[in-house]
């Protein structure tokens, strides 16, 4: 995988942002991507480079913000890091471009309360934006289990 070529292509695709690559173990290249550029970056990677598949999307609450990591594989690991603020946890869905992203995105919505804009199954239930995928049907709305700060428990019966 030619990291420099990828960076050059991304800088051309999103001229208002300068992309930079960082290496983390085990042989993974990480590129930070602004939220608004994600779709363009993925389209650019999909057309010009032999990206084989999206391995998964990791969502995490770092204590100060939400972070999404899109792990791709193309004869080497390539991860896109997207940072979301707590009060505006919305991101464009990739399911229309990569159908395999469907389950990973539904997990993000369920576990971290991220809103996926334009996801085909979004809005099926009012509370979480999706019908439940991994959690039980009676899981209380508004309590994504992987968020560090949970609402107080006083309302529980």
């Amino acid at each position, binding site marked *: 995988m030619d990291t420099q070529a990828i960076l050059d292509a991304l800088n051309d695709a999103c001229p208002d942002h300068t992309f930079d690559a960082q290496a*983390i*173990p*085990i*042989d*993974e290249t990480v590129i930070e991507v602004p939220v608004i550029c994600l779709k363009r970056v993925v389209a650019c990677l999909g057309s010009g480079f032999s990206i*084989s*598949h*999206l*391995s*998964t999307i*990791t*969502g*995490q609450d*770092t204590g100060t913000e939400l972070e999404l*990591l899109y*792990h791709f*594989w193309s*004869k*080497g*690991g390539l*991860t896109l890091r997207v940072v979301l603020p707590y009060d505006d946890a919305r991101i464009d869905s990739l399911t229309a471009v*990569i*159908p*395999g*992203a*469907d*389950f*990973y995105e539904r997990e993000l919505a369920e576990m971290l309360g991220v809103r996926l804009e334009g996801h085909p199954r979004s809005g099926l239930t009012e509370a979480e934006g999706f019908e*439940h*995928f*991994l*959690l*039980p049907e009676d899981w209380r709305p508004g309590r994504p*289990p*992987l968020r560090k700060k949970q609402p107080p428990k006083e309302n529980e019966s």
Partner: protein
Amino acid sequence: MTRVTIPIGPQHPLLKEPLSFMLTAEGERVVDSVLRLGYVHRGIERLAEERSWVQNVHLLERVCGICSHIHTTTYCQGVEALLELEVPPRAQMIRTLMCELERIHSHLLWLGVLAENVGFTTIFMYSWRDREMVLDIMEDLSGGRIAHAVNIIGGVRIDPDAEQLDSIRRGLDKLQQQVDTLLDVVQHERSLRVRTQHVGRTTKELVRRHCVVGPVARAVGIDEDIRRDAPYAAYDRLSFKVITESGGDVWATALVRVRETSESLSLCHQILDQLDPGDVATRAGRRVPAGEVVSRAEAPRGEVIYYIRSAGTDKPARLKIRTPTLPALSLLGEQLRDIKLADVPVVLSGVDLCIACADR
């Protein structure tokens, strides 16, 4: 024609694990399916944040009841990368040996399930009998048939002696004959071919779009294997072929898996020949320096990926697991469209589902 909705699962004789499918059928043809997971969701990712690095080895062994060893391998190599630990070569070899034994066990188990689902009970009995041989070898090595607890952070827990290695060699030789027989049956037995050829057929494009990995991807000709493309453990010192087929049907996945079993047997022999004496573990500290790591490995069902983040404490700050069954389930929605109702069990077994893995 009237549409009928048929619920399959979460408890159903066809399924080995709880999973729910709502199939919509028009007469004998399936036209749609809706999937619901989560019946064995144990919240392992969240649990891992509450347990120490060492305790997590035992927790993660329980993600899957078939490929338990690959999970601890992926986790341990990730944590070792954060600790910048050098794992002794003998430990790497033993780790790899267990990975390959596990692949043999998983593939033979799968062949049995497929045979049972197509009504070929003889092969189901044969392959599960042969699987016992691998389980015996693994039990002899580690004390456990399914949960082996072989990996520890920094190496492995077991150190087989010459006598054990000899008995493994004898077991593997016997197994090779059986696997050759099974391959012959899968290739030539008419009743098996009639039920699996052109069934559950998928294309390279669909497999790519749904991000499917492992034997299902290799059955449509995608030449990818983490063991070769990003060698971990001792794979850089071993030689093996990555098996691919082009058919994309259940029969092709069966051929890929049985041939892979043969390759795994050859890998086991290579490991036994190259196993030099030495240490089996390096001491690891209780705290892991702050940092993040992406660790990948090739499970029997395809690429497993772990993302681990440490905040410099004695527990992980985040641990994410993605097992190969999840993308396979995504593809299944497409495969279950416009097929005969009677082919549903065959298509389901073709992708080799492991629901506990997918649910975590």
